[in-house]
């Protein structure tokens, strides 16, 4: 992000730096107060008579890659949807970077710094790869309507900044050559990467990955593992991911939470969890 600053005027450089200082202060504060990045407290969600999430609590620390595993229908995606505001929990609290985001709307949650991918990849199919990422950087496009219509200096600078930032991200994930291709013309694995790149355009502090290795074979899954780890290391973010592939979980996750029927079955490192008798009985027996 620092390489695009030299395109702006002095004023804007100053305001950009001020923004960065705020961000760093918050990070330092978070680290100092040892606030977990994400904390869910006794979250409950039911649909009709079904308890999709039952008294779910978790604490995820800065820099962790935390896995959320469990059989289909265990409530994992529902948890994601509660965090990102698609549903509001029936009770309980969700705290992000010290701020209570329970029941906030999805766009607000995204603006606060939580990015996510979806189980069934949700790209802007008919738009180009580049546009997909540019759209996600929309928060940097701080010009208003008249400025957009008359192509004021601010508009031009911001648009260039958006494009540069998006290309940067595409380079990091290795998709820069496909920038002008239509998003749904990419092979599946690349669409996944694009979805992740797009989520990263939000400058998120927390990234939610919903079954990122779904539909991938063993080789692709390995590649994905490296990719996710690189993302975490490069951007210094925290990752919460839903996964079925146990080898992905073992290789990647620092900790994981096992869910069954909306209830937490076990929490711990992948090794601990793999050896937990309850878990073995409920889940790991018939996994692919």
């Amino acid at each position: 992000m620092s390489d695009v600053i030299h395109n702006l005027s002095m004023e804007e450089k100053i305001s950009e730096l001020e923004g960065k200082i705020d961000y760093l202060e918050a990070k330092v504060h978070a680290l100092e107060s040892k606030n977990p990045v994400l904390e869910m407290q006794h979250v409950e969600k039911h649909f009709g008579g079904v308890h999709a999430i039952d008294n779910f609590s978790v604490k995820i620390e800065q820099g962790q890659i935390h896995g959320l595993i469990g059989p289909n229908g265990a409530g994992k995606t529902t948890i994601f949807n509660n965090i990102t505001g698609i549903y509001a929990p029936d009770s309980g609290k969700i705290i992000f970077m010290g701020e209570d985001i329970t029941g906030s709307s999805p766009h607000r949650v995204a603006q606060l710094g939580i990015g996510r991918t979806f189980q069934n990849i949700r790209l802007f199919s008919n738009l180009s790869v580049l546009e997909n990422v540019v759209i996600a950087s929309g928060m940097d496009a701080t010009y208003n309507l008249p400025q957009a219509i008359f192509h004021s200096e601010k508009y031009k600078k911001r648009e260039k900044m958006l494009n540069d930032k998006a290309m940067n991200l595409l380079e990091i994930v290795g998709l820069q050559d496909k920038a002008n291709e239509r998003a749904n013309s990419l092979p599946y694995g690349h669409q996944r990467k694009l979805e992740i790149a797009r989520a990263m355009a939000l400058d998120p502090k927390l990234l939610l990955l919903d079954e990122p290795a779904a539909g991938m074979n063993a080789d692709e899954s390995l590649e994905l593992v490296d990719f996710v780890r690189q993302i975490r290391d490069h951007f210094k973010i925290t990752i919460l991911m839903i996964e079925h592939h146990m080898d992905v979980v073992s290789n990647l996750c620092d900790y994981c939470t096992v869910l069954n029927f909306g209830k937490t079955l076990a929490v711990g490192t992948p090794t601990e969890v793999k050896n937990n008798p309850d878990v073995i009985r409920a889940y790991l027996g018939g996994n692919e």
Partner: protein
Amino acid sequence: MIEAFNNINNAVCGFLHINPYIQGVVVLVCINVIAILGMAVLTGFTRLFSFGNAGFMAIGAYCAAILIVRHNFNFLIAMVIGAALAGFVAFLLGSLTLKLKGDYFLITCLGFGECVRVLLNYFKKFSGGSAGFPGIPSYSSMLFSVICAILAFFIAWRFIHSKYGRNLTSIRENEVAAEAVGINAFRYKRLSFTFSAVYAGWAGALYAGYMMYVVPTNFALNKSIELITTTVIGGLGSLTGSVLGALLVTLLPEVFRSLSNYRMLIYGFAVVLIIMFRPNGLYGYKEFSLKRLINRLKGGKAKTGKEAA
């Protein structure tokens, strides 16, 4: 001031040998283009379907007419107020109805359009009722209308090719994903709706200045339906396609004057055939590009963009 504009128009048209009949056709084309551009933003780029934009045209038309005839407003100011009022009403209506699912939203727009028509018919003292509102000065000269149309296109183009247009298309492509990247879908949909209403009001005000007389039936459900089907025929997701669609829909009846009895029948067939065999319309998702046209003519690599919506 109207006289001054009209004099300039007559001078230019005289110089270019454009007779009044053709001038009239051009004005109608411009009016349709502006209304359709608004629909393109709403339906083509945001995928919201409204069956009530004729109601916004009526608001623009009657507002401008009443301000000019009864209160001696300058016609430019009256037009701006008319379009702004239409936009304001859309803003209010959209705030209430945009939370509804697609089919339901569509029908509230339909209801709105009909309500406007019924109310205009009913409050005779205000609007002239079903007999119409006469005596509007003729300010929609060809030159002025063309300037309006070009301006409308310019603004719409800039709008679409900025974050505004991008965010709207992202909502169209995948609303859940759009929200997940920080876009407030509701606010943007409302913006899109308001934009289409402002343009409809603008077109309506121009219409009033052309016909010099407005009747509520000018802005009935048929008009709203015509706006939508023309937008679809022109191609959803393309501004130039919409302009082309507007051109076609206005010009073809003039060209096939002798078949005027069959005009609507042909139109109906055109809609059905296009939807069946070329649902992306004339342009669908692509804007007209001189480069591409030249490439195609040269027999070079043509980039075709046929995809199912």
